[in-house]
């Protein structure tokens, strides 16, 4: 309880949490408020916002409800952001733990591979991957994770390097535990907190990367995405700027919210650590 209270004492954490909560509410209630296909044609094309209260944010080039698209887009953005971050963290933690714990040649191979991935810009990697495999939601998640796992891998390795010298690891060795069991049951859980601290940055980056991919026409065309909405609106930027501005602002708020909430968590845990 005190952790939560401490967390809520930082203003950025409060702001971040409110934004994130609103976002989750949007994503979860999308089917409730806007059942059916959000890409269905709902009214006249290019209706400006605040004209017709059944279509509060207006309609796009084909007459699709912008508000419905925004709600369903929140779902895609969050799903991609969370899934990509989870995948990146899992891959990164496993690679980092193996490298740090095994050492020697395994460490060399794994870390040089990590270096190789790190030298290629993550977005370029995602772009190449999606253009080759073809755009669909799972491919986009994979593509983003592909460029994001290196950070967690390096952090995990650094943690594992210090943890593996602890007494309880030596103890586990003495009682004859399998090295892999030691690595994943004793070492990894203790190496996780600093790795998890990276998650907010990764989620924010993943949401942005997804939007950028969709903007370039490499998102899943069967789902509404904010990046796709901005790209659609771009052709009518001069006549109907709201089509790009609305999803753009939502995107900014989301990334800000994720980042602020993440900062709050990091600060709270840092305080707790220093207290303990």
């Amino acid at each position, binding site marked *: 309880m005190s952790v939560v209270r401490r967390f809520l004492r930082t203003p950025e954490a409060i702001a971040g949490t409110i934004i994130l909560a609103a976002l989750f509410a949007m994503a979860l209630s999308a089917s409730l408020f806007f059942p059916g*296909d959000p*890409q*269905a*044609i709902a009214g006249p*094309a*290019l209706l400006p916002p605040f004209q017709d209260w059944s279509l509060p944010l207006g309609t796009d*080039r*084909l*007459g699709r409800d912008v508000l419905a698209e925004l709600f369903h887009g929140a779902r895609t953005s969050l799903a991609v952001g969370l899934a990509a971050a989870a995948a990146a963290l899992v891959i990164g933690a496993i690679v980092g733990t193996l490298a740090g714990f095994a050492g020697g040649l395994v460490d060399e191979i794994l870390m040089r591979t990590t270096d190789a991935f790190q030298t290629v810009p993550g977005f370029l990697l995602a772009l190449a991957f999606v*253009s080759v495999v*073809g*755009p669909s939601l799972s491919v986009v998640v994979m593509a983003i994770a592909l460029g994001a796992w290196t950070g967690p891998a390096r952090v995990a390795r650094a943690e594992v390097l210090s943890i593996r010298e602890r007494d309880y690891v030596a103890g586990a060795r003495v009682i004859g535990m399998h090295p892999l069991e030691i690595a994943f049951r004793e070492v990894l859980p203790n190496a996780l907190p600093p790795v998890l601290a990276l998650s907010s940055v990764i989620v924010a980056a993943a949401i942005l990367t997804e939007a950028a991919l969709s903007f370039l*026409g*490499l998102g899943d*065309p*069967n789902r509404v995405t904010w990046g796709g909405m901005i790209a659609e609106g*771009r*052709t*009518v*930027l*001069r*006549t*109907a700027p709201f089509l790009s501005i609305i999803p753009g602002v939502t995107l900014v708020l989301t990334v800000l919210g994720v980042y602020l909430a993440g900062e709050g968590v990091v600060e709270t845990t840092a305080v707790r650590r220093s207290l303990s």
Partner: protein
Amino acid sequence: MSNVTISRRAVLAGSAALLASTAMPDIGWAQTLKKGGRLVVAADSEPRNLNPAIVASNGVFFISSKVVETLAEASFDGKDGLQPRLALSWEGAADGLSVTFKLRDGVRWHDGKPFTSADVAFSALQVWKPLQNLGRTVFKDLAAVDTPDDLTAVFKFAKPTPFQLIRNALPALSSVVPKHIYETGKIEENPANNAPVGTGPFKFAEYKAGQYYRLAKNTDYWGKDEPWLDEIVYQVLPDRTSAAAALEAEEIQLAAFSAVPLADLDRISKVPGLKVITKGYEGLTYQLVVEINHRRKELSDLKVRQAIAHAIDKDFVVKTVFLGYAATATGPVPKNDPQFYTADVPTYAFDVAKANALLDEAGYKKGSDGNRFSLKLLPAPYFNETKQFGDYLRQALAAIGIDAELVNNDSPAHIKAVYTDHAFDLAVGPPVFRGDPAISTTILVQSGIPDGVPFSNQGGYKNEELDALIAKASETLDTAARTELYKEFQKKVATDLPLINVAEWSFISVARDTVSNIANNPRWAVSNWADTYLAG
């Protein structure tokens, strides 16, 4: 206090002058004709091969038709819709085995060598027939070109070939290239393909990749007093939204081929100093077509195809996707074609209930999730409009219980997926109607075309009756009988729906008011611009 007095008469006179200056047409007024000047035009693509004799496509013509000329050009009022260019007259033999061209005298290539019938013979036999994307079909039976003298070329055909077809093919397919430049080495690798040499009003001057193409005035041009302009610069602006801004900033004076997005036209037409022109593309009609893969069991059923045709609200497509700058289609020949179009074909009114009933009849009942079956839908990526229609079609199909999954590809991947791998169920394509169904239209439904030929029937459709009709029309010499056969062809296609024609559209030009003699022929954007000038 100002001592200027304004009398009512002075105001009236002034406003009358003002009115006259705006009301007077700027065409044909000697005092506004001004020689010289540079026309800056927006270009949205940079074709690698600029030889129009090999690549007969609008992207190439847009630049190289000013450099390399054809035997004849399309015309609004000329006989058979043609006006002479390098050929002065053309005559078809009654047996359909030969066509005689009388060529223009005193024409010189840009390097000073004289233009003769040998150049025409070389272009026809060595370039159009074996290498040109469209010429391969039209000139397939061309056996020889006789050159009795320097100004006569006689095309000899192995099989009777309709003169009407050759005539209709002249504006797009008959770009003449110089023999003396192309006769050594491989034609496809000739450096002149990237810096064309022709007889046209403008010489190819330079090309800076990613920046511009520059054409300079040909002072030795055969047209009297032509060309009017000193040079034409094609400013490469790949981003479609930037063309409008460049026009407003007076960085460019002309954006052809709908470089300004349709949604922006309403706004830009109100900008002073700019005009929106919808004419000048009558001979370049694009068709919005739903290509169907007949290998899919469901789609090989005529009732299903009829249901899809009934599910598409063509008026909505014209109004919303094309913002009114298009027409609804009835069949494979566009409504604006003066020779072949017939309205006497089965039509499919927008009727969701009927579409649902047809699908029920065909035995595809709605499942518990409201879907009958799923399809893969591949919209062609070349135009915003084809992509948007893809989005619309997905919704239209959802309304009749067909779950369409959109697959987006870039251009090479789309061509490979549809025309080589056949990895589609429905595709949205923009084929071009080029003045005669035999040039690039019958190939869309004819069977027996090898895999990998783009913009052809790759949907596995086979209808022997239709094939026989196409074969018969291709060897019918009598113009009236041939036209009648193509009317029959339209009826058959509309009945059996090997593909679904949704709409027909052309392009829009936006130009500064000073650019004159715009759109004075049906292929203006891809014609030679010899008489275009900047009023000053």
